[in-house]
């Protein structure tokens, strides 16, 4: 038994083929044998043992299932750093909504996974705790796992856990899922509560899931979704049983293929995988419809106004007073603020806070922030119009396969272009899933992205399940 999927492992646990303790030891060993990946910021054997000795069995598929948690979720029994020096010793006094729900289902938390600092990055190289290494790296050439949820994607890909949480603001689940060859879903904005998730850009941040297959992602997604009065943007809707309802028969459905996602200069292998997925859908009786999302090219620049603006506001809380680092240079209150933030934030976070401050500052607000919000309306409308003609949309997840650690570090904009295919859906608040669907010429995984209407996650799981089954 390999113990790579939740469904099968859950049956083994239920039939007493293995105990929760034995299962955890397997994963503790796997993590210990893969410390070079740097996938975890917090990993402590005693903590896991303590969870097991105080464990109460739950009637749930997740009972005893070892999971990894992105270090952006506040956890009462483990520190939470958001990948930042400024929070390196932070111990949350409360549990995030999402992790609370998983604990209630009986899941075991193996540890907290590495991520880009405050989830700002597409390579996991901005973490204060060092880069994560993609487990599929070629010999002598360490590759990025993608970001920001790179540790979670790498941990699932290397089978260091059976599933992991992530957060996605502009592609932070889907892009690393594609780079690491795993399934990653970002649900509709509002499906999961943001309570207890360290905030980056509040109008975009959403929790989601990494797993090794579509069934498992449906199981975990259902577990973390749901209304929470602590988050005023959390939707009060009935959550379907995604897993039980999966129907991989897509005949009669229509898929939209957006012409704007044919970006010039993109490696041919990306389009090859895309074409292949279209053919596989066609074989399943899916109608192919060419659609247009005319404002696609403005999504990235709009995002890089809105996200930094919200980040500059959200990160104002790190002032050395209530929690987190305080600089030793603190002879005055002003010096304390400025030195704390200067010493505590990394380069990329500072850049984004500064850009955000600039676009929100007096005299510039209308020209940048308001303009970007208007463009955001147009991008959301593009999707709403497209869904009049199709049930879901198929695109590549990323414009390239995983790249070497250190690449694109000289030019922030080059790094931002990683998210060209994932950001539009984030701005519209619609759900998206990335599933592995082929290999680059170098043998690295490439993902395909499915997008749907708000709260239509079931269609995503159905279509992803069909593609997964029919990928040869």
């Amino acid at each position, binding site marked *: 038994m390999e113990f790579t999927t939740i469904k099968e492992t859950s049956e083994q646990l239920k039939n007493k083929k293995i105990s929760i303790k034995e299962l955890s030891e397997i994963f503790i060993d796997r993590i210990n044998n893969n410390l070079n990946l740097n996938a975890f910021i917090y990993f402590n054997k005693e903590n896991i043992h303590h969870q097991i000795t105080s464990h109460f069995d739950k009637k749930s598929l997740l009972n005893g299932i070892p999971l990894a948690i992105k270090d952006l979720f506040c956890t009462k029994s483990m520190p939470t750093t958001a990948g930042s020096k400024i929070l390196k010793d932070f111990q949350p*006094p409360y549990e995030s909504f999402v992790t609370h729900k998983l604990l209630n289902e009986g899941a075991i938390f193996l540890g907290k996974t590495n991520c880009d600092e405050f989830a700002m990055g597409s390579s996991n190289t901005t973490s204060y705790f060092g880069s994560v290494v993609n487990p599929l790296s070629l010999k002598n050439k360490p590759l990025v796992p993608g970001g920001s949820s790179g540790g979670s994607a790498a941990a699932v890909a290397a089978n260091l856990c059976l599933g992991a949480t992530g957060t996605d603001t502009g592609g932070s689940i889907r892009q690393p899922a594609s780079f690491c060859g795993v399934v990653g879903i970002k649900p509709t904005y509002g499906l999961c509560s943001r309570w207890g998730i360290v905030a980056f850009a509040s109008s975009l941040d959403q929790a989601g899931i990494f797993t090794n297959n579509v069934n498992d992602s449906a199981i975990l997604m259902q577990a973390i979704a749901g209304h929470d009065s602590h988050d005023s943007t959390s939707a009060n809707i009935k959550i379907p049983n995604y897993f039980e309802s999966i129907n991989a028969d897509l005949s009669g459905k229509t898929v939209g293929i957006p012409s704007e996602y044919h970006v010039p200069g993109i490696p041919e292998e990306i389009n090859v995988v895309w074409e292949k997925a279209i053919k596989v859908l066609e074989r399943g009786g899916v109608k192919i419809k060419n659609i247009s999302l005319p404002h696609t090219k403005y999504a990235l620049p709009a995002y890089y106004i809105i996200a930094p603006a919200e980040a500059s506001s959200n990160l104002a809380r790190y002032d050395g007073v209530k929690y987190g680092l305080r600089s030793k240079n603190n002879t005055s209150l002003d010096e304390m603020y400025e030195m704390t933030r200067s010493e505590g934030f990394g380069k990329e976070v500072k850049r984004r806070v*500064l850009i955000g401050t600039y676009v929100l500052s007096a005299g510039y607000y209308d020209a940048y922030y308001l303009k970007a919000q208007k463009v955001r309306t147009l991008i959301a409308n593009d999707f709403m119009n497209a869904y009049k003609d199709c049930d879901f949309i198929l695109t590549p997840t990323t414009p390239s396969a995983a790249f070497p650690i250190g690449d694109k570090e000289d030019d922030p904009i080059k790094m931002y272009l990683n998210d060209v295919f994932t950001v539009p859906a984030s701005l519209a608040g619609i759900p998206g899933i990335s599933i592995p669907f082929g290999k680059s010429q170098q043998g690295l995984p490439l993902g395909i992205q499915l997008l749907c209407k708000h709260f239509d996650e079931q269609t995503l799981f159905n279509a992803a399940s069909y593609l997964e089954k029919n990928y040869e």
Partner: protein
Amino acid sequence: MKIDKNTTLKIAKLSRIKIDESEIDELSSQLSSIVDWVEQLNEVNTDTVEPLSNVSMAKLPLRKDIENLKDNSEEVLSNAPDKLEKYFAVPKVVE
């Protein structure tokens, strides 16, 4: 350059982030290129478009205004870099 040295220093001050003298030039040039790049939004006509600030379907809920007498000051202060009795402590601000 859109963002010159003085502008960088001004927004750094507004952001309460101390920028080292040696970083200012590189930072100004990076910030300028980001601002230049996002300005492509000006190609889009948005004269009659409303801004989108919330994609959530949730209506802003109201909660009952109920008094909560629980003293959780210990939890609230548990991560404070410096505290005095039940207060956060900061460097002296008045002489």
